[in-house]
């Protein structure tokens, strides 16, 4: 009997020891492992004895995988490449202003034609001088790789006018064309690229202020500052190429979001700037009002993505009926969706824009064109010729947690007014394929999220010229819409007013139902006093204020 009790005791001890690791961590909890992030850094700052850091460690939620400069702009690459290893002709600051980098000047010669002058002293880390030929080569290579063709679609051709000057002819006169081309394509030396055995996949040579020192695929990246960075004129230096005291940038790849949050708490990483820390872990770093807790620094930003409901307005869907579209708009309580799913980490959109975009019209966003009203929705449903329970719609969305939850809530709201809704939550590949269906019968409602350089760029789904079917992404051929889109899209006529006019029309016709935009947070340990991000939500270490631990 005693032995049985002993064996049970041992088993209990084992289980208890496994549970010993349990328990939530509270800020300020002392730990021998935690680098006293909060404590010592704050004290040091207060006593004025702090010294600028020479090294910073960033957490990445995914691997860079390859350093080829013309691959998809996924988050990790934006953090690591952008303006660190490679440079573009011009970058965009967080508030959307053009920040010239390799281009000394960009001037419009005529509509859709731009004169570009390069700095004549640009060299890559191998010492090769960058000329106009390298710019043309880089754009050609970018097209050959194929992944950024959506960005280079605006380019017609280049004309070299000198060693460091060239004319850029754009295909159309879109308002986003110039910035898209200047910002998206990284410029490298043809000589260095052709000498590379793996097309820069693991041996990148760029003109940026940092070079790759070490890369362990799937685990870490180390960048070191170049001693011979070409831009020696500090006054002409772009914000993005600032180095400051930071000589080394370490990136740690931590794919699990809770692990990433833990690494930040432990001080193993100084900052997580882009995607990564899940909102379920926010409470470890911020209070309910989203102010930083002691020991951390938080920089809020607005996510460029806006979630909206695309309505299939083609003949293949009952939503060709405007009254029915309005019924759906009235049936959805957007504020309740935001409150329930995101709390204060998102905001309702009453129009198809957000404060992220420079052309955002706050007055237009202030009033809801279709305020939540189940009665009004039922009335509109009747007006459309449907009785309650008669109609079933197909809603598609991506297999992302908050999307599937949003879809479920929308389904419930529609059910409440007598519209059945069949929800298909598919992983990205299948979702994109269904979304691009050319028959116009695969879906009625598409819960989607898009972004762009401006509001018009974000709403490319409205542009029928972007589709070969003669109809836009909503299976719609509306000449008025197309005219308004083109006016708002052309660089010559693009303005806040023309964008507002377009958005008003879209709201009036209820082609797209805007739902919400999310807020994000760059989170850092206390030694990071000020976080400066660029338009891609990538940290600019040299422009930030980082103290040594």
């Amino acid at each position, binding site marked *: 009997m005693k*032995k*049985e009790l*002993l*064996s*049970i005791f*041992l*088993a209990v001890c*084992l*289980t208890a020891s*496994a*549970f*010993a*690791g349990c*328990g939530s*961590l509270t800020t300020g909890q002392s730990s*021998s*492992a*935690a680098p006293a992030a909060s404590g010592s850094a704050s004290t040091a700052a207060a006593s004025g004895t702090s010294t600028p850091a020479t090294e910073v460690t960033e957490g990445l939620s*995914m691997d860079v*995988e*390859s350093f080829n400069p013309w*691959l*998809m702009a996924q988050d990790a690459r934006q953090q690591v490449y952008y303006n660190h290893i490679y440079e573009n002709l011009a970058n965009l600051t967080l508030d959307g202003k053009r920040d010239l980098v390799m281009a000394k000047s960009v001037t419009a010669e005529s509509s859709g034609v731009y004169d570009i002058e390069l700095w004549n002293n640009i060299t890559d880390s191998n010492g090769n001088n960058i000329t106009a030929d390298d710019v043309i080569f880089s754009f050609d290579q970018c097209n050959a*790789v*194929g*992944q950024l*063709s*959506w960005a280079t*679609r605006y380019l017609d051709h280049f004309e070299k006018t000198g060693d460091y000057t060239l004319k850029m002819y754009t295909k159309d006169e879109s308002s986003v064309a110039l910035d898209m081309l200047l910002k998206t394509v990284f410029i490298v030396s043809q000589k260095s690229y052709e000498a590379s055995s*793996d097309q820069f*996949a693991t041996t990148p040579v760029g003109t940026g202020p940092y070079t790759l020192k070490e890369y*362990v*695929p*799937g*685990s*870490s990246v180390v960048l070191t500052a170049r001693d011979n960075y070409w831009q020696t004129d500090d006054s002409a230096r772009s914000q993005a190429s600032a180095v400051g005291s930071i000589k080394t940038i370490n990136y740690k*790849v*931590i794919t*699990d979001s*809770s*692990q990433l949050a*833990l*690494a930040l*708490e*432990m001080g*193993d990483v100084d900052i997580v700037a882009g995607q990564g820390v899940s909102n379920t872990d926010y409470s470890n770093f911020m209070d309910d009002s989203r102010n930083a807790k002691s020991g951390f620094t938080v920089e809020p930003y607005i996510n460029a993505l806006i979630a909206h409901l695309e309505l299939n307005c083609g003949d293949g869907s009952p939503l060709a009926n405007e009254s029915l579209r309005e019924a759906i708009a009235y049936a959805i309580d957007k504020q309740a969706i935001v409150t329930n799913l995101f709390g204060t980490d998102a905001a309702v959109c009453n129009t198809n824009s957000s404060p992220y975009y420079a052309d955002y019209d706050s007055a237009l966003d202030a009033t809801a064109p279709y305020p939540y009203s189940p009665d009004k929705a039922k009335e509109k449903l009747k007006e459309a010729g449907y009785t309650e329970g008669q109609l079933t719609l197909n809603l598609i969305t991506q297999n992302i947690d908050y999307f599937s939850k949003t879809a479920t809530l929308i389904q419930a709201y529609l059910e409440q007014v007598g519209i059945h809704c069949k929800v298909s939550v598919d*992983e*990205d*590949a*299948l979702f*994109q*394929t269904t*979304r*691009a269906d050319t028959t116009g019968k695969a879906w009625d409602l598409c819960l989607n999220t*898009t972004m*762009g350089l401006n509001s018009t760029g974000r709403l*490319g789904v409205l542009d029928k010229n972007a*589709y*070969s*079917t003669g109809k836009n992404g909503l299976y719609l051929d509306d000449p008025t819409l197309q005219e308004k889109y083109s006016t708002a899209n052309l660089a010559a006529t693009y303005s806040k007013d023309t964008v507002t006019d377009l958005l008003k029309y879209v709201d009036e016709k209820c082609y797209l139902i805007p739902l919400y935009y999310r807020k994000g947070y760059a989170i850092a340990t206390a030694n990071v006093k000020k976080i400066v991000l660029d338009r891609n939500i990538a940290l600019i270490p040299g422009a930030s204020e980082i103290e040594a631990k």
Partner: protein
Amino acid sequence: MGRYIVKRILWLIPVVLGVAILIFTIMYFVPGDPAQIILGASATQKEIATLRQTMGLNDPYILQLGRFLKSTFLQLDFGSSYVNHVPVFQALTERFPRTALIAIVCCIFQIVLGIPMGIQAAVHQNKWQDRTLVVLAMVGISIPSFWLAQMMILLFSFKLGWLPAFGITSWKSYIMPCFCSMLMGVANQTRFTRTYMLEQIRSDYVVTARAKGLGEHTIIYKHALSNTLIPLITGIGGDFGAALGGTVIIENVFSIPGIGQYMVNAIGNRDYPVVRGSVVFLSIAFSIIMLLVDLGYAFIDPRIKAQYIAGSRKKAKKEASTNG
């Protein structure tokens, strides 16, 4: 014996070829367009069509399959990732040692811990040693590895600061992943060994051995254990093969860039070359392990070895008589 090995190696060819054709076919018919994924939602149909053409996705199934088989088996070229253009073979060979290390450590602990614990449990059946070990094994099987991983990180990394929580900076980085991966294997091994040993201990030959006055140690470790090794080795081989491709959760939690993590990311991205290459690579590795397990039988069990030798002699005799 040599002929048997050659024969078994030749058998690998249709197996691996079959796996390659199967995975290619499955990936081919899975809905979802890689070109669409790469270019994103804002791409036009024309851009998608151009990229499909560049990637060779518009070619007929047979042509794509033939191209895949030719490059994989004749040129040992698994292609390059659609997403990052890095050669798949290169990525796999970089990542394989990390996954293999975890799998090997698990395997070693299964042998050095699981088997002795199982023997002790069987030898002391229904005594406190047996009950303790059975309870421990049950706990080991019941604890989900991802949960254990999180708890270990909180305890050993966050609270005590003894071990790194993520990455592969030093040998210490592998301690927690290996422990989490091996726990279930060791627990299973303990249970299997106990069961097989109990069967053997109750056998007539053990009773006879005891009656003849053989020492208990000799009976257990020399006679009974030898007879349980065949099923145990089969299980360990299978577990090792599964661990090569099945440490996805552990690799993810501890941010270890191994094959599992690589493959899961590729499946999400519809990165066909990576998925196909990884599956073929793992099927080759698994087949080789199974070959070694089969060969191991011959060394463990003299009866099997005798069968091979007798088979070879018989064949040689038959050939001689035919020629003569």
